[in-house]
Each structure stands twice: as C-alpha cells, then as structure tokens.
C-alpha cells in the first residue's frame, strides 16, 4: 500500500524537511540582524538577540537619593522619597532587600526595618520611602538591591548613528543613495538592450544569428575579473574616468550575456502562433515586440531584473574599480560597511544596523517582485 502511484512519503518528507531547513537557515540570521539593530551595545554584549524579545530579569543595585539634599521633615523624623529608576528604564520589582546578603528578603510593597525605627518601603513600580531619625537619614543614600523584570527595550539610536552621523560608523544614508544611483540604471540599461537583442535573436531571421547566439553563450563563461583592468584603461583612455557612467557601463556589459541568454530562451518559448497571428494582423516587428513580446516576457524580465539588481546592489569589486575615488563622495554601502568593519569592528550594534540597512532594499524588492516569478502569464492563450 505504500507504493500507490503519486504517494511517496519518504521523498515528500525529505522535501519538506529541506525546505524547512533552508527557510530556517535564511530567516534566523536575518531576524537576528534585524533585532540586534534595535539594541544597544551593552544589551548585545550581555544577552543574545532572542532574549530581547522577552521581559528580562536582572538584579541591580540602586541607591536612594542623597538625604542631605532631599530629606523632608515628617514630625520628628525625616523622609526621603522618590523612584529608584529615576526615569531611566523601568520595570517591575518582584523582590528586594537592603543588603547584598539578603537581596531577596522582601516582596514589593513590604517594609524593611533597618533597626532603631529606620524603615524603607519599596513599591513594585520603584517608588520608595526611606524614613528615619535625623541621624539615620544622612550621609549617603540607602542602598537598595532589587530584582527587576524589565519589558523588552529597543532603541532607534543605532539607525540615527549609522545613517546620519558623518565619519566612520556613519554616513550610510549617503552611501545608500549612492548605491541606488549605481543600481537602478545598472538594472534598467541592460534590460532595455537585452530585450531588443533577445527578440531579434529569437524571432527575426538574419544571417549570422546562430553565430551571435553562440557568442553570447561563450561570453557567459568569461570571468569579469579578466576584464577589469583593460576596461578601466579603456574608460580612462576615452575620458569617462571613474564615476557613475563608468560603473553603469561596466555593470551593463557584465550583465548583458546572462540577460540576453535568459530573455532569448524565454522569448523563443512563446507560442509561434501568437506572433504569426500578430504579423497577419498587420503588426510590424517593432509593434510585435512592444505590444506582444514585452508584456508576455514580463516574468522573465522581472526575474532578470531581480538578479541584476541584487548583484549590483551587493557588488563591491566593480564599484571599487570603476566608481570609488579618493574623495569618497561616491562611496557605496558595501564599501562603507567594509570601512566600518575596520574602524568600528567592536561595535556590533553599528555593524548589525549597517548590514540591515544594506539588506532592507533587496529584501523588499524580492518580496514585491516574487509573485511575477511564479505567475504563469501564458495560461489560456493556446491549448
């Protein structure tokens, strides 16, 4: 009975488990980075990011306010009252004590008798009342040991630092826009060129077509490092120099073989009848391209756009060679993060925040576009 056609429990389980592992492998570091970017350096050092999501219990020593300045007379006694948190942090006190040997002697709301009529009362919210004689309420403030359960605490300070301060450990906002300036044209230009080329290679008859396709496939396997220096010399020679134009051209060149190859293979698979029908309907090649091929190729265009976008977004090498000069005005995020690793290598909260800033856009691009990757646009056109 286990071998009924279409039922393969072993394989199904293997698939499910691998999918789960892959998802876990991907989700947990991302989530960790995300959470860490909202924590302070101390929090990161003292506990893992997963602990940040739940209330934490810590033992802390507080001291009542300086009696000489704050005490008020109450009959023949003096009273110092206030809140042990003094506006910072906060939380709920469960147990407390007045000496390090009995730090959990009292529950919140109870009164501790320190002898000779001197008392301390501590409420759960941190309000305390310290009462005693003139002699007792003097000198240094009474020490209070409290076990405090504090709610999760997050801060936006890291983002403020990383994005908006100048100098090392900051400047990501500028780098972010520089990266965008590189990435968007470097995605659009190759798609434009490749779509035209792919249509011609797929559907137009001209001599040498097969040879051109072979050349495109051959270019797929050329490593780009091979072309870095000659290309840079060319750019310098013809006066483009280092800058955005140069990096756009370089990304375009390096992206084109894959783009043409992917799009041509997709377009060649479009039903011939549709194109022939458009031809008989009176459409020119250009009209067929714009009105039929482009809309139908949208899934392929989108998937290549995602590839190219992610690759240029995460690129460091091409940007270093063709873009970033001594002024540092055109630095991109990858370069900025590398610099931070050097100068602020110990500040994990800064690094986590910078890393999250740089992956935020690719993440949202992927989630916005992924439905185009799976949508079958061709359903229903042909039987």
């Amino acid at each position, binding site marked *: 009975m286990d071998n009924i056609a279409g039922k393969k429990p072993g394989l199904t389980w293997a698939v499910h488990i691998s999918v789960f592992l892959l998802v876990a492998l991907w989700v947990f570091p991302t989530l960790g980075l995300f959470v860490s970017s909202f924590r302070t350096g101390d929090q990161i050092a003292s506990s893992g990011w997963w602990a940040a999501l739940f209330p934490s219990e810590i033992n802390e020593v507080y001291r009542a306010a300086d009696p000489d300045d704050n005490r008020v007379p109450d009959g023949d006694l003096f009273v110092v009252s206030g809140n042990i948190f003094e506006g910072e942090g906060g939380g709920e006190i469960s147990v407390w004590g007045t000496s390090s040997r009995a730090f959990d002697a009292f529950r919140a709301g109870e009164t501790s008798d320190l002898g000779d009529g001197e008392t301390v009362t501590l409420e759960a919210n941190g309000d305390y009342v310290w009462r005693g004689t003139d002699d007792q309420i003097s000198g240094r403030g009474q020490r209070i040991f409290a076990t405090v359960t504090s709610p999760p605490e997050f801060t936006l300070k890291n983002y403020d630092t990383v994005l908006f301060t100048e100098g090392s450990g900051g400047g990501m906002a500028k780098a972010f826009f520089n990266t965008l300036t590189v990435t968007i044209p470097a995605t659009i230009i190759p798609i434009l060129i490749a779509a035209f080329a792919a249509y011609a290679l797929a559907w137009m008859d001209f001599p040498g077509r097969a040879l051109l396709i072979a050349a495109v496939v051959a270019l797929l396997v050329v490593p780009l490092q091979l072309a870095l220096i000659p290309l840079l010399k060319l750019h310098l020679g013809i006066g483009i120099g280092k800058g955005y134009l140069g990096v756009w051209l370089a990304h375009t060149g390096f992206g084109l073989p894959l783009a043409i190859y992917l799009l041509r293979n997709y377009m060649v698979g479009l*039903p011939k*009848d*549709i194109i*022939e*029908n*458009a*031809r*008989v*309907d*009176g*459409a*020119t090649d250009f*009209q067929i391209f714009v*009105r*039929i091929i482009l*809309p*139908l190729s949208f899934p392929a265009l989108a998937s290549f756009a995602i590839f190219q976008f992610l690759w240029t977004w995460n690129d460091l090498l091409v940007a270093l060679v063709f873009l970033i000069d001594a002024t540092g005005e055109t630095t991109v995020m990858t370069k900025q993060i590398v610099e931070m690793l050097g100068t602020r290598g110990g500040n994990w909260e800064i690094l986590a925040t910078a890393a999250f800033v740089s992956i935020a856009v690719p993440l949202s691009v992927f989630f916005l576009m992924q439905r185009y990757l799976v949508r079958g*646009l*061709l*359903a*229903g*056109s*042909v*039987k």
Partner: protein
Amino acid sequence: MAGISLQNVVKNYGRLEVVHGINLEIDHNEFVVLVGPSGCGKSTTLRMIAGLEDISDGDISIGDRVVNDLPPRKRNVSMVFQNYALYPHMNVRENLGFGLKIAGQSKEAVEQRVQEAADILGLSELLERIPAELSGGQRQRVAMGRAIVRHPEAFLFDEPLSNLDAKLRVQMRTEIKKLHNKVRTTVVYVTHDQVEAMTLADRIVVMKDGYIEQVGTPMEVFNHPVNTFVASFIGSPPMNLIPATITSGQVEFRDATKIPVPSRLAGSVSDGQEVIFGIRPDDLTPIGHGIHEARETTDIDLTVDLAELLGTETLLYTTFVGQEVQGKMFDPRDVTPGETLTFRLSLDKAHIFDAASGQSVRRH
C-alpha cells in the same frame, strides 16, 4: 473583388520540395477547403497565401495584386490558427481590436467594429474577459472575431476546429458556415477532416504529397473521384477498393467472381485491363435494405464478420476476395456474425480505376 490565384507555386525547404507547382483559382467570396492527410502541403500552401512562408517559385495574387514578396501585414488577409493564438495578456475586447488599433484606426471606429464583430459571434458578454477565462469554443469564436473585425479580403483558417471536442466541433462547423453566409468573403480553409470539407466547402481541393489531386464541388468530388486516393479519402466509411481484371466485358475478381461492367463505363475499359473496382458501402446493401432503387444492379452473397449498429443503419464488415469489404444495411434488422446475406451492388454508383495509374477510367 478579391479572388486568390496560385500559379505554379512551389515550396522547398533546402532540397526538399514539399509543394510541387500547384495551380488554383479561388473566386471572390468562395469557400474553398484544402483537405488531405497530414504532410500533404495544405497548411504550407495556406501559410504561403498568408505570407508566413516564402514561396520558392511561382506567383500568388490576391485580388489583382501579386503578393509574392509582400509581408503578411500588407496582404490584408486574416488567419485563424489551430491553437487560437489569442493574446493572453489582453482581454477579448483588446484581442479583437488589436489589428485595427495598430492600423491606426480611431478609438470610436475600433470600438464600433469590435462591437459589430462581437454581436455577430455572440461575444458581447465576454468582452472584458481574458483568454484564460474562456472555454475552448469561446476562444475559437474570439479567434474568428479577430479575423472578421478587420474586414480582410480573405479569411484563412488553419485547422481551426481540431482542438475542440467532437460535439463542439460540429457546432462550430455550423457557426463557421453561418458566419460565411453573413460576412461573405473569400475563405480558404485547411482541414484533414473530410466531413468538415464536405459540409463547409463551395469547392474542395484534395491534396496529397504536395500535389493537388482533385478540385471540385463536394458532390463532384464525392460522386466522381478522379483517382483511388480521392475515392478512399472522401466519404466515411471509405469506398471499398477491390483489385480486378476486365475479361470479356466483365469485371473478374481474383476469386473468379464476375460481375458486369457498369454500362456507363463499358466503353472506357478494355479486355485484359488490370483495374480497381470501387464501391461505397452505401451502394452495397443487403436486398431490401438499400436506400434507393438502383437501375443497374448485381447480387453477390457475402458472409457478415461483424455488424456495427449505428441506429438508422448498420455497418456490415464482410470478407471478399481476401480483403475486408464494408456494406451498409439501412432500416436494419438484427444480424448475427457468420450470417450469409445476399448483397445488392448498385452498379450505376460503382467506380473503376486503372490499376496502374490509379486514375478513374471515366472520361472527364
């Protein structure tokens, strides 16, 4: 006036010639069906008329224009494809209007023509749907609508019904015929289904291996096939073709059975000629179960191997001279396999083909 004329049209792919110099004159508003088995060159011929295939030699003219080198869009024909070939990303309205829109027609004109075509084909309710939301028959109608909105000089149909199920096919066949009656235009229709050919055509062109075998009205092709190929291809079930020899004015089969030569063909055959004797199942019926009273008949006894009941008639499979021969029984009674019946053969409907050439001996 837009007839279509093919003169010595040749198509070859490299050294392989698939259409061998065919000649065909299609009149204005005529419904011509190209029929033949697959690989006979009928679709290639149609695609050459549309301009989707280059012609290797000869001339094609539409109206009085020679269109040999014109691209498809300048030929003013429209084509309906086997796979419908609807634009999947456009709704029905956009599909119908596509050809007009790229021709630069005004929005109002496009809208009006689309509405007109939608009314003719009963698509008005479906205009906002996309092809994926349509049934097979509806898609086929949209494909036809897309052809008619442009008021082309000719419609070209490339096996438009072969993707539909049997019932829908019959229905759409009728609709195509009605459509042609409504929008009278020259139609060239390609099919491998001889029933479609018979029911739709003003004239049938039977093709085989890149040659035209016969051109004629359905009745001509059915009643006077010029050779054994046409005889066996047109008509269902196919004509029985039995080899025989002419001896002393009689048709002598291999088992020495002799029947008279039909009198209308008596002058066309000579003694000793090897022939193929053709008789349709409709004209080979048990005595008392025929459909018409033939003037000239002969009787033979045959044993029934198998009887297929079709309701109004029964198909009888018998063996004659070592080959399967089909007869028909109209107004049927129960027949048990193994039963021997006397069949009446209508000689005035019989055909005789020369065995060597396969051509009919009848003078044309």
